[in-house]
């Protein structure tokens, strides 16, 4: 009887849970879209009313301002678009170097925090607790001030090694003058790397099949370093250095690392390194002691035990949070604007101020950081999938 009633009286439409659910979601999305459209429309109307230029036409105009350091050729006669690309490459450069160095530093410190040696353990702890708890911006000002104030003027530059000069303008060091042979060496290097990977795979398959070991590490190193060396010698060892020399106000020739870049890199690496150290430590501690004990009992050496048993399991805990740290580091690099490193934000700021087109400039900055972050996420997620625990 009761079931009969329930079946016959369907609730009115606005009280039907299924309909209501769909209705709310449609309504919500519509509101968001309307809000977005309203804001865009309102902005455009207001800009037009105040006669403020809009659109991306300014990108083709001459930038007319100088940029202190650039990985690609740039002069004030280039366009705003090119200046923007200079900023982008500067950001990517410092972020990429920062990620690599922070990972190395963080891993070393994370393992040091678990060291049996009291001094090493405590030093690592002091490092982590100090630099993790000071705002990054302050650290940047500190490093920048330190590099600027302690360095001598270029004419009295320190010379720790021949052709290395340290001054308050940065560190100047010699670089190799490009030679045609270097292209062939690069080719030899890539062949060497591919061959080393092939040898390693073959050795591993053979070990699984027959139990026989093969010194694939040594052979691989020989292939990677030996092949380019052979090409280098065969080409008659062409080696000329582009040496820095004091000419007028500054060092000319070679490569110069500015105090701004050095301070930014140092700050980012040391700050992010603390977080990575904690993540690494947590990852290693997450692998139960029984695992390594079992490995030892089977007769694996400590190195093998770490590489084959502990690390693969630790990585699965380490990789996801470390992705966040890489993202943070990349975004934190925008603090460069405070200490005068010409990163993306710094150059976009100048552009916005010279053209007055703040809305477009901010939109471009946001789009670029979003794209970089999504790319990092994508690669790290792919990597994560390859190290994740495969359950059977």
């Amino acid at each position, binding site marked *: 009887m009761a079931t009969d009633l329930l079946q016959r009286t369907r609730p009115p439409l606005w009280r039907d849970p299924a309909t209501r659910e769909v209705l*709310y*979601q449609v*309504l*919500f999305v519509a*509101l*968001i879209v*309307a*809000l977005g459209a*309203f*804001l865009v429309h*309102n902005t455009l109307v*207001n*800009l037009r*009313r*105040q*006669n*403020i*230029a809009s659109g991306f036409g300014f990108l083709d105009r001459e930038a*007319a*301002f*100088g*940029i*202190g*350091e650039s990985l690609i050729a740039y*002069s*004030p*006669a280039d366009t705003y678009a090119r200046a923007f690309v200079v900023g982008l490459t500067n950001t990517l450069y410092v972020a990429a170097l920062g990620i690599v160095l922070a990972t190395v530093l963080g891993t070393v410190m994370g393992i040091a925090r678990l060291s049996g040696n009291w001094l090493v353990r405590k030093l690592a702890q002091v490092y982590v607790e100090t630099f993790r708890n000071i705002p990054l911006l302050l650290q940047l000002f500190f490093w920048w*001030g330190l590099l*600027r*104030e302690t360095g001598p*003027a270029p004419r009295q530059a320190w010379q720790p090694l021949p052709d290395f000069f340290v001054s*308050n*303008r940065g560190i100047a060091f010699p670089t190799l003058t490009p030679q045609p042979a270097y292209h062939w060496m690069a080719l030899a290097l890539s062949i060497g790397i591919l061959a080393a990977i092939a040898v390693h795979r073959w050795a591993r398959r053979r070990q699984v099949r027959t139990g026989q070991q093969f010194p694939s590490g040594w052979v691989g190193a020989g292939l990677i370093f030996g092949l380019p060396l052979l090409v280098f010698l065969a080409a008659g060892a062409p080696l000329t250095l582009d040496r820095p020399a004091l*000419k*007028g*106000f*500054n060092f*000319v020739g070679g490569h110069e690392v500015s*105090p*701004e870049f050095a301070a930014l890199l140092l700050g980012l690496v040391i700050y992010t390194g603390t977080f990575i150290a904690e993540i690494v430590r947590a990852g290693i501690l997450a692998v139960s002691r029984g695992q390594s004990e079992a490995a030892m009992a089977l007769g694996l050496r400590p190195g093998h035990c770490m590489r084959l048993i502990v690390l693969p399991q630790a990585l699965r805990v380490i990789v996801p949070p470390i992705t966040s740290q890489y993202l943070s580091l990349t975004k934190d690099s925008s603090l460069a*604007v*405070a*200490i*005068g490193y*010409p990163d993306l934000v*710094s150059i976009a*700021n*100048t552009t*916005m*101020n*010279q*053209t*007055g*087109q*703040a809305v477009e400039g901010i939109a471009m900055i946001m789009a670029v950081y979003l794209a970089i972050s999504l790319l990092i996420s994508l690669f790290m997620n792919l990597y994560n999938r390859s190290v994740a625990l495969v359950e059977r």
Partner: protein
Amino acid sequence: MKIKGILGALAAIGIGLGLGATAHAGPTLDKVKQAGQISCGQGTGLAGFGAPDSQGRWAGFNVDICRALSAAIFGAADKVKYVPLTAQQRFTALQSGEVDLLSNNTTDTLQRDTELGLNFAPVVFYDGQGFMVSKKLGVKSAKELNGATVCVAPGTTTELNLADYFRANKMEFKPVVIEKRDEVLSAFFSGRCDVYTTDSSALNADRLSQAPNPDDYVILPERISKEPLAPVVRHGDDQWDDIVRWVVYALIDAEEKGITSKNVDDKLKSDDPGIKRMLGVTPGMGKALGLDEKWAYNEIKLVGNYGEIFDRTLGKDTELKFERGLNNLWTHGGLLYAMPIR
């Protein structure tokens, strides 16, 4: 959860509408009168032009322009809120209505007048860009600066003139671009750069007020640009534009007519029809601007004429000791020429 989301969206729309409403607000004068004060965009502190003194009160040449405006509108010189802005923040702050005008050494240029949606009041200070270097370098002319590292603030005409000058003279330079003025200065004085460049008046002020030892630095003789510095208002409010314009003209005109803060009360009895019109003895000018007839009287009485302001903040009564130079009346060989108040 969903209800909360909808409420959030509604709140956001409310904020959006609110923003829209402020952007459409009526003429600036009404807003200023309602608020009881003028919001005056200043720089982040430049000796002589505009900086807080030891008691935290803003003082300086640019500050006095805003005080004169306040006197003309309210009959009191202190109805001003000073908003310190960096070179990069200033235009957005003005465009968005956060400040009612900029009085902070902004150079009048075509692009700012048009694409940035701004209007410039008459020029209050004629300046030109210069270079400051350490004496130790032994540089005598800007032409010797090839290869130098130059400290400069971003988003300024200075940054562009610098690049133009080095390009025109086929020289190379390395800019170090830092947003905050005190950071630029500390970078220069610590030796990070060979050269510091900005308007020469500011170079002088910084050399005297910020350098560890002013005698260690010299300002090179070249003036590489014209920098006409003027107060700035938004496009689209002609009445406010007019008020700022004529408040500045009145300061200059008063000096030309010999009216000072000390003798302005005597001048009320003057027979000169021009002075009578200006001081509101003969009514009409104030009404035309939408202000009290005493607008110019109050300005001069409470703040002084252009010459008095200059002497008090930048000129002979200060440590800066600027010459009047271009900033003298046209009758004394300068460029200051006020339109007739009639």
